[in-house]
């Protein structure tokens, strides 16, 4: 039913005056994939999405749907279905008219329009809302109308620009699940824009991290989380402890002498050189109070504060002048002022190059 395509961006650049909103963007989005553009506000996600939809013409580079170069194609010819951040529902039309619009423009017969509108409203669970106006709907319902309106034309690509950002937390989780379900059911190529890393990790097949307009890493959620390519990504995806240091020894492992005078070992990687400046990264939840069974690192710290956050205790400690953060189970009682040994297995200790 859905004619899905792959989407390719080749060397796309878009400037707004001094700002480079999309900087040499290269993306290969597979057909049927749930692909997420993730990055902080202002990093160029919307710009990239609008270039795909055809609302911006890139200053440089090309956009392909399958093998077709669509760079110079008008938005109305691209057959993408976009859900806008503010939903952009038309207030002078009823729900059914909003949804039917794209079909009417395509001069599809009245009977077919009726049937397809009913079917898509069923899919987004809006049966019986046909005659309401957008003002008479809740935020979640408006969101569904926007989704139905985009899906009913059976677009080649579904484009979602922070679709959940205007909903409250609980509804957001519910809609998130629903969007994944619909996407899987239809198998439609989907490009999803968000600044919420947790959302991105939970919905996507693959994630592209964007920063200052350029794509930093494209990988599966798990890989992004476990193997962030640089310090920006590591910091942006969950919290991290950063230990800057110098590579001291390379044998089976790489040993880094950190600036706080702890030794940390990590797995070997390509192009490693003794004397290189690097950053070792350990996630707070990867620290534990017990020695892991695998090969491990250990750091000694003095506890400065303990904060109960529900599922665990968050511990702030001091190593020299550096603050270290660890999450440990609540059944262990620790007090500020105590000294603590934190263990992290070697394969959960990442090494990152120092950029710039």
């Amino acid at each position, binding site marked *: 039913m859905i004619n899905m395509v792959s989407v390719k961006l080749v060397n796309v650049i878009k400037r707004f005056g001094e700002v480079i909103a999309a900087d040499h963007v290269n993306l290969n989005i597979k057909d049927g994939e749930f692909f997420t553009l993730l990055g902080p506000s202002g990093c160029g996600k919307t710009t990239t999405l609008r270039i795909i939809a055809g609302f911006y013409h890139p200053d440089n580079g090309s956009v392909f749907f399958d093998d077709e170069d669509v760079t110079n194609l008008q938005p109305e*010819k691209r057959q993408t279905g976009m859900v*806008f951040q*503010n939903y952009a*529902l*038309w207030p002078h039309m009823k729900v059914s008219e909003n949804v039917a*619009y*794209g079909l009417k*423009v395509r001069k599809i017969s009245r009977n077919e329009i009726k049937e397809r509108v009913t079917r898509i409203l069923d899919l987004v669970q809006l049966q019986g809302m046909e005659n309401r106006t957008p003002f008479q709907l809740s935020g979640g319902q408006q969101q569904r109308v926007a989704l139905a309106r*985009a899906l009913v*034309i059976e677009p080649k690509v579904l484009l979602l620009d922070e679709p959940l950002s205007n909903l409250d937390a609980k509804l957001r989780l519910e809609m998130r699940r629903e969007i994944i379900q619909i996407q899987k059911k239809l198998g439609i190529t989907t490009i999803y824009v968000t600044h919420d890393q947790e959302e991105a990790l939970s919905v996507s097949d693959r994630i592209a991290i964007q920063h200052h307009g350029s794509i930093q890493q494209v990988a599966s959620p798990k890989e992004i989380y476990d193997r962030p390519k640089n310090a920006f990504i590591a910091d942006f995806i969950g919290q991290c402890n950063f230990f800057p240091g110098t590579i001291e020894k390379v044998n089976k492992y790489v040993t880094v002498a950190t600036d706080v005078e702890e030794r940390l070992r990590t797995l070997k990687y390509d192009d490693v050189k003794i004397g290189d400046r690097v950053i070792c990264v350990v996630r707070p939840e990867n620290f534990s109070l017990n020695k892991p069974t695998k090969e491990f690192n250990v750091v000694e710290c003095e506890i400065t504060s303990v904060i109960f956050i529900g599922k665990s205790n968050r511990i702030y400690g001091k190593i020299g002048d550096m603050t270290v953060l660890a999450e440990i189970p609540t059944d262990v009682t620790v007090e500020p002022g105590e000294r603590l040994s934190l263990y992290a297995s070697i394969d959960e200790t990442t090494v990152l190059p120092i950029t710039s």
Partner: protein
Amino acid sequence: MAGVSLLVLFLVRKYISLRQYSIVSSGISPAALVKKIHGKKMLVVLPLCINIILVSLLPHIGILLASFAKVWSMTYLPETFTLEHYSEVLFRTPQFIQNTLLYCSLSAVFDIVLGAIISYLMVRKTFPGKDILDGLAMLPFAIPGIVVGIGYLRAFYRFEIPGLGIPLTATWFILPISYMIRRLPYTVRSSYASLQQIHISLEEASMNLGANRLQTFLRITMPLMLTGIIAGGILAFVNAVVEISTTLFLTPSLEQASLSFGIYQYIYNPQGKGPASALGVFAILLVAISIFIVQKILGRRMGTIFRA
């Protein structure tokens, strides 16, 4: 004269930029800013208001009385009443009212179309000469009608309509055309205000779903700015009804004259005071009804059209 007002207009435009006529929400509803007046203050305020309203209504009352008066000279009120002035203007010289309705409707319709297009270009597009178009569209506010009247007369008295072979100034076309130009700022202004309220993503969503620019304008933009633009059109209409200066210069013949020209003709005729007043009553009614409709459509947004 025209030079001075042009200069002032451009100075004003320079310092009060376009942004100023967007609707800025302070977050407080206008109703919340209204203070109720109580007690002793009312004793001062109420008579003051009544007096001001009475004084400004006096001419209207006078015209109403005069339109029914048979003889009215040395008394406070007319001595005998009659309907003959109305029958005069309705049956003997019906062209005044008919022409007015025709000319003013025509000019208002064209104003609506032009206003929608110009304001769309102003708000949604950037192109070379945008400032000039903006200035031109607002220019009629700055030029006195008398200047327009003489200007048109001199400019078009030798301009022959292709095919007809008569000069433009010898036909009634010149009247709706001049009204249209004179009142264009009303529809430009009102469409501008409503267009600024329409988020661009509403139009983008339409294009995303396969509609081209024209379809998007007709199905999304136009309907959404309709109330504002119709209100502007009605205001253009009323103001054309009472337009006197250009009318006097450009009316080609009595047969093709409009209401305001008719009043002017009657008033200089010793027996014409009554019919002139009857026409005046029609003009007042037209204006009142139109303003009432606009107020119903626009409500509190009325002010945005008049803000310069």
